[in-house]
């Protein structure tokens, strides 16, 4: 009579084992399977395409009901085994069936890790392991609401991509700094993140889930930093652990998984274990390739055939999200004894890295172009010595025969004692060592700790490549936008070097920083001019030829080549005398349009360029000065009537506005600066959408900044509250000076603030009185050179050539 084989679990591993067994010894065993899942053996790997809609369940069944019948196998669907009695050699199911066995195979797979956080059992919290989970997700997706996937590994990303394909708004929360960090290095993780985000899936790394919110259903996820991500569905894909409880209860030896020898024999005679629940030679597995190896060995064992047993090998990882090509195998951690070869093609989104030890491949990461994956795997498995093809290895199989090294690979190939920074004598090893040991992640930090590239800066590119080598995608020098096509340097770099090398003219900057053009372009010249004006207020001679026409002639050019004239009207306050002067000028010069601007003053539009000096002369007589309506500088300070008239006014908002405008006019800034002062929180001067705003309150002055109401609309942030008008002025001036010194040309305050951080600004301006005073003093110094009314200067004859044609030629006459 046939022996009795009982299998617990009907997953992919025992399914494959049975195929081998039926082939080797048909009829030797009578087989009974208990499966907690109420279904036949299906291809679990393909659940993701089912979720995304690329296929359906029927298509992924491995063994249909007919297969079990044909092979005389009894399959108990939906029966969970709750106990193994190894003395009596029986198993018992949760539905009360007790089954005797001669041989028992445990193949209970894995269980998903459920994070031990409050709310983890709320309805709407799912895991991703079987078809039931997929069906539940599909149901949730019908509402097209928001999903959060916890875990940015293989499973999590496939779930996210599937839910996204089903129309949900998906956010992936990942604890680690980069996605799939167990299979990918940081550089590939970064590229993956970008590719995922390009699909419209939000990714938040370093996101530590603290709790799941909801009264009787999921409503959101709370992170450790206190932020809340709203969700109607939460999928936990935070990892799996071998399902070994049952075996442990039965007294089998269990470590991480059920301990088995190379023949899949557990600590108990007649009991085998295989699949994800088993631990062989210290390894547990989560991909099917090794499980299928186990299936072969287990089948041979049951058939009584001798084999060499199971041998560990690495399995390549691939992500089944269509359009994302990713491959990784083996060990890719950095280490003393390791070398690496890297190839990047930023335009094509390709990244390849091969890790070598003693000239043998121990790991490979490929992103964007994975066709050589198998080839690398083969070389690794064979432990082939690749010294001979080292130069061209990274280019793949097709290139064996020799192509040139990419610059990145060339840097990677440099010896550790190679000198990188000639000025300060810093070697490659010293730089990479410092980056690793001190966890440096910005160029500034590397400079501070190693001095490399801190002098002439010409090795900046090399240092950045080294940073990329060590940090991978965390450091992305491509993110440094060059100032324009004339240079590879970014704004910050140029600003730093102007100071460091005391560059005081535009041609000095272009010479020393190796500009690629003879005299720049319309993008870089105004930027450089600003940086020099700002950094050397007393020494630099403003280069008018590098200013946009409006700032050169101190009026705004109009579409027909005429100009507009906007005089200052301090704080928006005017008088009969001023209005009369404007009226006279308009009549005298036949100015076609007079308009009240959005900045509380009056604009005269359509003035001929030739008339500008005369117009200004007339206005000057009434005390008007230029309103700088054209400037990357202080524009207007809007005010409301405040305590002067308003029944709600708490402070003299008009007075403060005028005081600020009089103090700060004439200063040049990276982009225009608009301010406002409102006398109470009703905020009639609209101070909360300005670059800098003040809301007066009973107890003092609430200073706001970083608002915008043009191309972007953004409410301000509060800088802080101060008690007196003097303090308000000091804080505002210091803030603007900080911006003047750090801002990139054309970067409004709100963008600069986003870049450097609101807290950093508050720390320096509100928290550090010495810093604040120093900023204030530097601003005051620069105003000594800036506060000269440009209109008066031109009326007095400055730049006369600007306003007159060089010649007028009369009608032609025939030559004699």
């Amino acid at each position: 009579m046939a022996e009795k084989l009982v299998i617990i679990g009907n997953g992919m591993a025992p399914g494959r084992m049975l195929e081998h067994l039926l082939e080797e010894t048909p009829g030797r065993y009578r087989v009974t399977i208990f499966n907690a899942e109420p279904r036949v053996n299906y291809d679990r790997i393909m659940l993701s395409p089912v979720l995304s809609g690329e296929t359906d369940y029927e298509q992924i069944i491995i063994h249909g009901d007919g297969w079990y019948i044909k092979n005389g196998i009894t399959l108990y669907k939906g029966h969970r085994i709750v106990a193994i009695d190894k003395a009596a050699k029986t198993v018992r199911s949760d539905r009360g069936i007790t089954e005797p066995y001669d041989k028992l195979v445990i193949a209970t797979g894995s269980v998903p890790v459920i994070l031990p956080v409050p709310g983890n059992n709320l309805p709407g919290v799912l895991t991703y392991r079987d078809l039931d989970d997929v069906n539940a997700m599909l149901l949730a997706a019908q509402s097209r609401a928001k999903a959060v996937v916890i875990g940015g590994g293989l499973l999590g990303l496939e779930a996210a991509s599937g839910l996204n394909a089903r129309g949900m708004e998906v956010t992936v929360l990942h604890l680690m700094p980069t996605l799939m960090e167990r299979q990918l290095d940081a550089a590939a993780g970064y590229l993956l993140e970008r590719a995922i985000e390009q699909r419209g899936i939000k990714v938040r790394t370093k996101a530590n889930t603290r709790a799941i919110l909801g009264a009787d259903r999921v409503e959101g996820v709370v992170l450790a930093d206190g932020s809340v991500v709203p969700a109607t569905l939460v999928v936990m894909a935070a990892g799996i652990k071998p399902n070994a409880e049952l075996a442990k209860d039965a007294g089998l030896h269990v470590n991480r998984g059920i301990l088995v020898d190379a023949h899949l024999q557990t600590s108990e005679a007649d009991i085998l274990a295989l699949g994800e629940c088993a631990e062989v030679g210290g390894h547990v597995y989560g991909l099917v390739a090794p499980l299928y190896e186990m299936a072969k060995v287990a089948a041979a064992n049951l058939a009584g055939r001798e084999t060499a047993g199971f041998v560990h090998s690495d399995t390549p990882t691939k992500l089944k999200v269509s359009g994302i090509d990713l491959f990784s195998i083996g060990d890719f951690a950095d280490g003393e004894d390791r070398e690496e070869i890297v190839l990047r093609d930023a335009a094509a989104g390709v990244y390849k890295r091969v890790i070598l030890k003693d000239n043998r491949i121990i790991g490979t990461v490929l992103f964007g172009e994975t066709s050589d994956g198998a080839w690398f795997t083969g070389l690794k498995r064979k432990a082939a010595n690749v010294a001979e093809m080292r130069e061209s290895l990274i280019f793949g199989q097709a290139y064996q025969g020799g192509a040139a090294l990419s610059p990145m690979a060339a840097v990677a190939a440099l010896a550790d004692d190679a000198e990188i920074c000639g000025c300060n004598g810093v070697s490659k090893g010293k730089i990479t060592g410092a980056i690793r040991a001190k966890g440096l992640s910005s160029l500034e930090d590397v400079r501070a700790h190693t001095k490399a590239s801190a002098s002439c800066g010409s090795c900046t590119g090399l240092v950045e490549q080294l940073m990329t080598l060590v940090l991978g995608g965390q450091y992305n020098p491509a993110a440094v936008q060059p100032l324009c096509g004339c240079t590879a340097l970014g704004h910050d770099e140029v600003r730093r070097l102007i100071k460091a090398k005391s560059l005081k003219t535009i041609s000095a900057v272009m010479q020393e920083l190796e500009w690629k053009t003879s005299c720049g372009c319309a993008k870089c010249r105004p930027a450089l001019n600003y940086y020099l004006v700002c950094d050397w207020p007393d020494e630099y001679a403003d280069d008018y030829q590098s200013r946009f026409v409006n700032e050169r002639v101190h009026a705004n050019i109009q579409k027909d080549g005429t100009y507009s004239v906007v005089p200052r009207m301090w704080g928006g306050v005017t008088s009969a005398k001023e209005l009369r002067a404007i009226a006279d000028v308009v009549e005298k010069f036949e100015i076609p349009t007079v308009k009240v601007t959005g900045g509380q003053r009056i604009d005269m539009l359509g003035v001929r360029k030739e008339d500008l000096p005369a117009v200004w002369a007339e206005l000057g007589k009434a005390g008007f000065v230029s309103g700088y309506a054209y400037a990357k500088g202080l524009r207007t300070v809007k005010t409301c009537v405040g305590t002067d008239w308003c029944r709600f006014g708490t402070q003299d908002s008009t007075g403060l506005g005028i005081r600020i405008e009089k103090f700060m006019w004439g200063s040049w800034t990276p982009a225009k600066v608009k301010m406002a002062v409102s006398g109470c929180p009703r905020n009639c001067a609209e101070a909360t959408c300005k670059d800098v705003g003040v809301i007066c309150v009973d107890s003092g002055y609430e200073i706001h900044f970083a608002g915008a109401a043009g191309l972007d609309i953004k409410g301000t942030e509060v800088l802080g509250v101060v008690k007196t008008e003097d303090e308000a002025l000091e804080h505002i001036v210091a803030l603007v000076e900080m911006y003047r010194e750090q801002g990139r040309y054309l970067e409004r305050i709100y963008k600069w603030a986003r870049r450097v951080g609101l807290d950093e600004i508050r720390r320096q301006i509100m928290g550090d009185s010495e810093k604040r005073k120093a900023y204030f003093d530097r601003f005051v110094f620069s105003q000594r050179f800036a506060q000269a009314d440009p209109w008066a200067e031109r009326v007095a004859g400055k730049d006369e050539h600007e306003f007159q044609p060089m010649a007028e030629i009369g009608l032609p006459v025939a030559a004699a």
Partner: protein
Amino acid sequence: MTGVAANDGPTWETGPGRWIGIGSANDIPRRGARCVVTPQGRIAVFRTIENRYFAIEDRCPHKAGPLSQGIVHGRAVTCPLHNWVISLESGEAEGADEGSVGTFALKVEEGQLFISAEALAGWAG
């Protein structure tokens, strides 16, 4: 000189080889421009960083912006209205933009600038 000026400036005589004086080269700032007013319209006269002089129509091919008001770089000018870049040598728009303006022959003699009368005569304005 024969002929009468319509205004106080120099008049111009047509005919081959005639040049009209428009002023001193130093009247134009380096990397800058000045205008010459003619009955047909304005001409922009440029001086580059290398002290080369060019005269082109002061009317951007895009929307007639005054090119004389733009920023001069290399041998090109960026229009002040919408940033087209116009070559001073050819009068053609550079980059992706298409269009061109007329150019006029100039010569410098002993620091004085002269514009070609022939070129002016051939210009409809």
